[in-house]
């Protein structure tokens, strides 16, 4: 970890990777909180779009 943090470019790349991970984690948390009818409605909306 210290090797990444000593290099500014690697630090930025790690920050971008963390951002992508955060996006998917956020989506996973939202999905886990959705009730069955809400999930069905969300699926339907995605198909319409």
């Amino acid at each position, binding site marked *: 970890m210290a090797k990444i943090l000593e290099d500014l470019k690697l630090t930025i790349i790690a920050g971008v990777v963390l*951002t992508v991970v955060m*996006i998917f984690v956020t989506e996973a948390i939202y999905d886990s909180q959705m009730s069955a009818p809400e999930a069905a409605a969300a699926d339907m909306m995605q198909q319409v779009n």
Partner: protein
Amino acid sequence: MDAELFLIRYLHVISGVMWIGILWYFNFVQIPSMPKIPDEQKPAIGKVIAPEALFWFRWGAFFTVFFGLALAWRSGYLVEAMTLQQPNIGIGMWLGLIMAFNVWFIIWPAQKIALGIVEADAALKPANARKAMLFSRTNTMLSIPMLASMISVQNPIM
């Protein structure tokens, strides 16, 4: 209520620009430039510029968190965000809190020793300078997802 929320959000953003602006100044400008500065000129950074920048840096961090928490509380989503029932803003708030903790409890105490602001054994200075640099870099890394999380409240990413 609208004017109150506007004012709190405005102060939150202004403090945040101060905090993250100086964080990025340290990491993108000052730290990479230090090896290129002649030894006789280095005290200008260590004795004058860095202590002044650290003052605005740590208080920027404090007021960003203060106004951020006030904004979440007055908007009615503080508990939902902190318990990740609203994960988009919640993850950003947790990242911001971790970063502010690093500023006040790791970076600032280490910088006080490294810059000679407090009395300490000279042998401790290099280790504390390195510790401050690594945690400052950690905050630079965390600032990228933190800002994405904050923006995603207004513009959902997915």
